């Protein structure tokens, strides 16, 4: 059992070991921090759940100069391909005052209109190197193995600057990506879809249409995702939370006091939560 009196939380083990800590300190360990982040242009949403943060970044429609490997050719060919609005869903963890990106949980979606509401629909991108990944059960995972985001952002002390750098790395990576056949789920799903647009399924045509009018992609029908944006964010953050965040139980609170508490004679101070 835990007791809180006069602002002090106390716990005792079966062996009679007694520890205590200010209730405010105990609560600060289980409530989310208020993050004072200034956002780069293009960030459309910031959703915080406990110690996890999801940043939704929107890339405007336009032509991207990417490398695309043909299925039977070893070398990738540079192609200029128009894409609609691209949404990158980038999760971060808050650890010891720092926000740290989770590169393995980044997802990518298409939309033909700018994002306006949290429950807007999402569409799967007709791209190689994106797709469902059973390992993390992400619907439209994007392979980011080509950039070592953690190593390239870890040296940055300031959270806002780390956020900006992470987004810049992912945006640049995506805009000049090399798409290969190592992971083909979304592309294959699209080209085999009965509503697939022939202007996309043939890369030469896609490139030719791009040269004519890059905005043609905003009239293309894309495969609808199973979940809307809000559902997708909640699903991913819940997955991360279930892996990383201990459930707030009385046993967990007990363990915090026993492991991090002091002897009983400490004076209660009354700090402020936010």
């Amino acid at each position, binding site marked *: 059992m835990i007791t809180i009196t006069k602002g002090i939380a106390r716990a005792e083990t079966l062996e009679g070991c007694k520890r205590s800590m200010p209730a405010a300190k105990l609560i600060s360990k289980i409530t989310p921090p208020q993050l004072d982040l200034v956002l780069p242009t293009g960030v*459309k949403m*910031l959703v915080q759940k406990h110690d996890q943060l999801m940043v939704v970044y929107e890339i405007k429609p336009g032509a991207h100069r990417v490398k695309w490997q043909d299925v039977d050719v070893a070398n990738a060919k540079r192609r200029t391909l128009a894409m609609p609005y691209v949404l990158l869903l980038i999760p971060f963890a808050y650890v010891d005052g720092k926000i740290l990106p989770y590169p393995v949980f980044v997802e990518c979606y298409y939309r033909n209109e700018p994002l306006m509401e949290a429950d807007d629909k999402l569409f799967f991108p007709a791209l190689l190197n994106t797709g469902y990944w059973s390992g993390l059960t992400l619907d439209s995972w994007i392979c980011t193995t080509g950039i070592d985001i953690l190593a390239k952002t870890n040296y940055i002390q300031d959270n806002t600057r780390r956020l900006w750098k992470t987004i810049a790395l992912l945006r640049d990576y995506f805009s000049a990506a090399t798409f290969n056949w190592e992971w083909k789920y979304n592309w294959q799903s699209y080209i085999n879809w009965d509503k697939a647009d022939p202007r996309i399924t043939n890369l030469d045509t896609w490139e030719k249409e791009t040269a004519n009018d890059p905005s043609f992609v905003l009239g293309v029908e894309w495969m609808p995702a199973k979940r809307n944006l809000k559902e997708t964010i909640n699903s991913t953050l819940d997955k991360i939370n279930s892996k990383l965040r201990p459930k707030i139980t009385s046993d967990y609170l007990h363990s915090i006091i026993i492991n991090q508490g002091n002897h009983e004679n400490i004076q209660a101070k009354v700090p402020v*939560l936010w």
Partner: protein
Amino acid sequence: MITITDNKITAQSKEGSKASMPVEKFVSALCPPTPDFVLPDKVKFVKSSPDRRFYIAVWEIDPGVHSIRWISEDSPQQYGPGTEYDKRELALPYIILTMPFAIQGDRIVPQTSNFECFYRNEPLIAMDQELYYPALLNCSKFGDANPRAPLSWLCTQYLNAAAIYKEKGVSRQLWRMTKLTRWCLLESGFNYSSEHHEGNSHYSDYVDWSGADACIKDVDKWQKESKKNPLFVLDLPWKHTQHTMGQLAERTFKLLGAANGHTLDQAYLERVVFNAKG
């Protein structure tokens, strides 16, 4: 006294009445989530007050030449009906608009008496960066004697709140509010209303300031220089507010009457449990 056992938190008052709730719910009640806003382009952040009663949206307008209506030299009126304007092409640096609001139900409620406008010569990338006073008419200077007043109030007399409520959902309403505020600032016409109603505008203050660049003291010169080099304003000195972005947000919440943060004392923790009883 509070006890926590079997994933349940129980509070007991001095009079003996008891209330309890699941621990997870208690933690959520201590820190309610903020709405999932989809941000309009160039909104740099939406921050909530410590007690979650108010929010502040901060919008940055890029530097460049703006086509604006500026009061004519020979206007028969200084403000209001009958005021005559000239169309001017004037360069402006980064403009920071701070727009506090509350949320009631599914509506955002703009706190227009605390909308403010500032300048910067660089984009805003951190909360600890300073804001500068704008050299613009209709951005009111109340004077140091009034610590309860905004530093640079933006006249939002023509902000049509009804247009905001035509939009469904807080994200779309936020988007509409930023558009309307931009219109109030840059398109409704600059006149001498602040000089008459609030004491002064920051533009008139710049005109009297010896440190101000001569180009902006004279609108003809300002327009001429803007044509030559639209970004010349990014090299001009602006008056310090002595407030960083973060400090200004805190000041605004304080002016609106938001609490500074819940003090996590025994009484507050017990109140959270008792309030959840019903």
